[in-house]
């Protein structure tokens, strides 16, 4: 396509145009200057100028590539000059009328975007000043190009515009739109342009628009918009996005205005009905629009679905200037404490490859956790110090057997008085004039303490047996009952070996067995031992309490003495407390573990308690053996025990000295 430069503004124009598209002057030099466009009034030549992006260079397309309607434009333009009059339609000509008042300056944004628009172009009156296009209709009736005339003369239209409303066009459309075309001109209009013609008032009715057959085939896209006309029933049309186009009505000045497109038409003022849920009928979305709608939105209505019940905000503001109003934004708690949306709009949809990647990542994380090394792992080290201490203890235990001359005799104890008193208390049981009653020996220690306490229990038993008194044993734990059986058996055997006298069970010694319940069992035994033991440890129950060893025993007071061999302070304390309650007058002697001594010594008679004597530990047992002349296991084991104790004292002393020195060194 050739390009012709305007002789007036020197802008390039297609050669098929008669008028410059920038300054509206004739492109033919012999045609004379056209009416100069009011530069101030029309900073942009036309609306087209305002909207078009200025082209640079020759962007003209070959004439053969033009669409048909554009070609038609060219032909019409070519035929137009013969009429000797401008071929612009009336409404188009109004854009360049000299009577148009001075248009207001174009918006700055517009000017900035389109530099050409600011270079002496004029803004159309209707664009610049909606009030400006007040020119008579006649002035809008220049000779129309054929294509445009054809549009206006064809009264038939394919497009069945919505029923025109009786009301007039909006002001902006009245001023800018074409005037009511003449009848003759209307006959030549194409179908779509005939919509701009004034519709037959008889046909105006606020009814739902339905696509109807038209003389000219309706474009598909236009037909799909037809259901939108149903929105004409909406009374509150201002906010409705599918507001029906305003219907063109007769112009105020009586001139027929070109019919507005269907979308611009407005219904005749329908009576406004109160807004209610029943009045709202959901428009039917076209298929292509419905396909774009997110399917996850629950209740989002589309074709065929029931619409969601409308949300109603019943909250009424109570404070402030908005008191009494509904539908206002609440400062609290909606803003301050936003809640979670009830509808889950977004769901995570992952592709298969994404799922696979996620699984790989999860497997890696699990493997890492499972193979996690311990947080702090000290390097492997032998417990050499512990081994050294153990070796020293074992060595100390063997030295007394290898070199017994290194150790002296167990030193006499100041507390030996306790041991002596205990021995004396037992010895007094055999004194002449003393009632010969059996002696109760309570074995109140576990098998683990038998190494320390069985020797002292045996020496007590042997001492008592030597006095000719029966020994009755009771165990306060299942294991101690078995230990009591061993103590009595060994003691009797030892005494028999020494004295040659056979000590017989149930005559000289009886093991009653296990006394359950701790302190509760002691209470019952102290009051009625026959009720507790219906048989002895061996299971003999026939006339048990008629046996010689138990003759005359009906309560704890009937025993000649109470010897408590206890490995813990609690057991001995229970016996002491209960016998103190019954006010037994017999002597009480305690043989306790060395560790229980401090908590049992307050019960000694020398300290104001009921206990006559006490033997604590293997050392005191060895002394008792020596005092009573009954050497036994205590004396035999004491040497080894003493060596271990000495080594333990040395190790503890040296260890703490070294530890203290190292701390002092660190502090410095």
């Amino acid at each position, binding site marked *: 396509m050739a390009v012709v430069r305007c002789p007036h503004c020197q802008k390039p124009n297609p050669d098929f145009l008669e008028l410059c598209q920038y300054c509206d002057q004739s492109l033919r030099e012999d045609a004379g200057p056209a009416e100069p466009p009011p530069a101030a009034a029309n900073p942009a030549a036309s609306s087209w100028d305002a909207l078009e992006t200025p082209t640079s260079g020759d962007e003209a397309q070959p004439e053969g590539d033009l669409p048909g309607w554009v070609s038609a434009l060219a032909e019409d333009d070519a035929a137009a000059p013969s009429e000797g009059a401008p071929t612009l339609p009336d409404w188009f000509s109004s854009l360049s009328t000299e009577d148009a008042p001075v248009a207001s300056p174009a918006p700055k944004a517009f000017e900035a975007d389109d530099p050409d628009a600011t270079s002496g172009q004029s803004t159309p009156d209707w664009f610049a000043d909606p009030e400006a296009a007040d020119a008579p209709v006649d002035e809008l009736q220049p000779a129309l190009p054929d294509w445009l005339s054809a549009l206006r003369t064809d009264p038939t239209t394919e497009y069945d515009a919505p029923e025109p409303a009786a009301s007039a066009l909006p002001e902006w459309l009245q001023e800018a739109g074409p005037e009511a075309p003449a009848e003759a001109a209307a006959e030549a209009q194409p179908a779509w342009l005939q919509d701009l013609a004034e519709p037959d008032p008889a046909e105006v009715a606020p009814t739902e628009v339905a696509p109807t057959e038209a003389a000219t085939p309706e474009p598909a896209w236009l037909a799909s918009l037809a259901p939108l006309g149903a929105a004409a029933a909406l009374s509150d049309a201002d906010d409705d996005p599918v507001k029906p186009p305003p219907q063109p009505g007769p112009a105020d000045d009586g001139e027929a205005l070109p019919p507005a497109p269907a979308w611009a038409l407005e219904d005749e003022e329908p009576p406004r009905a109160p807004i209610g849920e029943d009045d709202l009928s959901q428009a039917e979305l076209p298929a292509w629009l419905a396909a774009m709608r997110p399917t996850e939105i629950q209740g989002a209505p589309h074709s065929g679905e029931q619409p969601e019940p409308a949300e109603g905000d019943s909250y009424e503001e109570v404070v402030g200037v908005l008191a009494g109003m509904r539908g206002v934004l609440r400062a609290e708690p909606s803003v301050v404490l936003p809640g979670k949306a009830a509808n889950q709009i977004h769901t995570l949809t992952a592709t298969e490859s994404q799922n696979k990647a996620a699984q790989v990542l999860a497997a890696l994380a699990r493997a890492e956790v499972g193979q996690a090394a311990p947080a702090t792992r000290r390097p492997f080290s032998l417990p050499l110090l512990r081994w050294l201490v153990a070796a020293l203890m074992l060595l100390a235990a063997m030295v007394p057997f290898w070199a017994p001359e290194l150790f002296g005799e167990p030193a006499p104890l100041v507390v030996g008085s306790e041991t002596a008193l205990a021995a004396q208390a037992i010895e007094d049981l055999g004194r002449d004039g003393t009632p010969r009653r059996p002696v109760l020996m309570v074995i109140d220690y576990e098998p683990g303490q038998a190494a320390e306490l069985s020797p002292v229990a045996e020496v007590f038993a042997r001492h008592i047996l030597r006095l000719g008194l029966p020994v009755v044993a009771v165990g306060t734990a299942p294991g101690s009952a078995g230990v009591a059986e061993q103590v009595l058996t060994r003691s009797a055997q030892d005494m028999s070996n020494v004295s040659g006298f056979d000590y017989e069970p149930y005559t000289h010694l009886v093991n009653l067995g296990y006394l359950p319940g701790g302190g509760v069992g002691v209470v019952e035994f102290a009051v009625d031992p026959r009720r507790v033991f219906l048989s002895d440890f061996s299971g003999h129950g026939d006339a048990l309490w008629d046996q010689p060893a138990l003759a005359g025993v009906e309560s704890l007071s009937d025993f000649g003495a109470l010897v408590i061999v206890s490995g813990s302070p609690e057991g001995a304390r229970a016996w002491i407390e209960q016998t103190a309650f019954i006010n037994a007058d017999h002597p009480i002697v305690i043989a306790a573990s060395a560790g229980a001594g401090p908590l049992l010594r307050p019960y000694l008679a020398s300290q*104001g308690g009921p206990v006559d004597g006490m033997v604590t530990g293997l050392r005191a047992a060895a002394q008792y053996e020596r005092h009573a002349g009954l050497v036994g296991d205590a004396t035999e084991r004491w040497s080894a025990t003493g060596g271990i104790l000495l080594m333990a004292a040395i190790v503890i002393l040296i260890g703490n000295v070294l530890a203290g020195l190292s701390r002092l060194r660190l502090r410095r």
Partner: protein
Amino acid sequence: MSTDLIGAAVGLALTVMILSYVLGDNPLFRIAMYLFVGVAAGYAVVVAVQNVLIPQLVAPVLALGSQTADVGALTLLGFSWLLALLFLLKLHPANQIGRIPLALLAGVGAAVAIGGAVTGTLLPQTAATAFPLQLSNLGALATSLIVAGGVIATLLTFHYGVRFSARGAEVDPVARVVTTAIAPVGQVFIGLTFGVMVAGLIAGAAAALAERLSVVRSLLGQ
């Protein structure tokens, strides 16, 4: 091979396996420990059944046929059986009715403990602390005063109920004396007592080691 020799060998093996813990935790130690636990539990069951339950529950029932039954004794025997069976229901973890005998045991045990503590320990020990100031000689007097003072200081070491700093108020002078002067003295007495106790524990453990070594010596010597 006599049973004593077999028994001694078993005891020696167990002793070595348990003492091997000194070298570190090892399977031999664990086997010996678990064996000991199982056998000890079994022995306790055997003794409790043979020495207590059979004589007190089973034998009287068996003896019912041979002698005239006393209604009172029979009723009490019935209650004993009822309580025993209810308590045995505690073998089921979800059982609730087994709590009845447990409640009886708890109540009686608490009462016995209270009675013994009051009559056997609290009153006599308090009297022994308060009254006998031995005036026979200076040494005995000093000993009595030291013991009495030590008892009071030891008790005041556990001053849990004394408030020492009320908000905004001055510290009670009595509380100040207790915390600054008396409580430290009590701590010394307590430390000395615990030291003697632990020395006794070490002595008992040493006796056990000596006994085991003597068994080993005697076995190896034979």
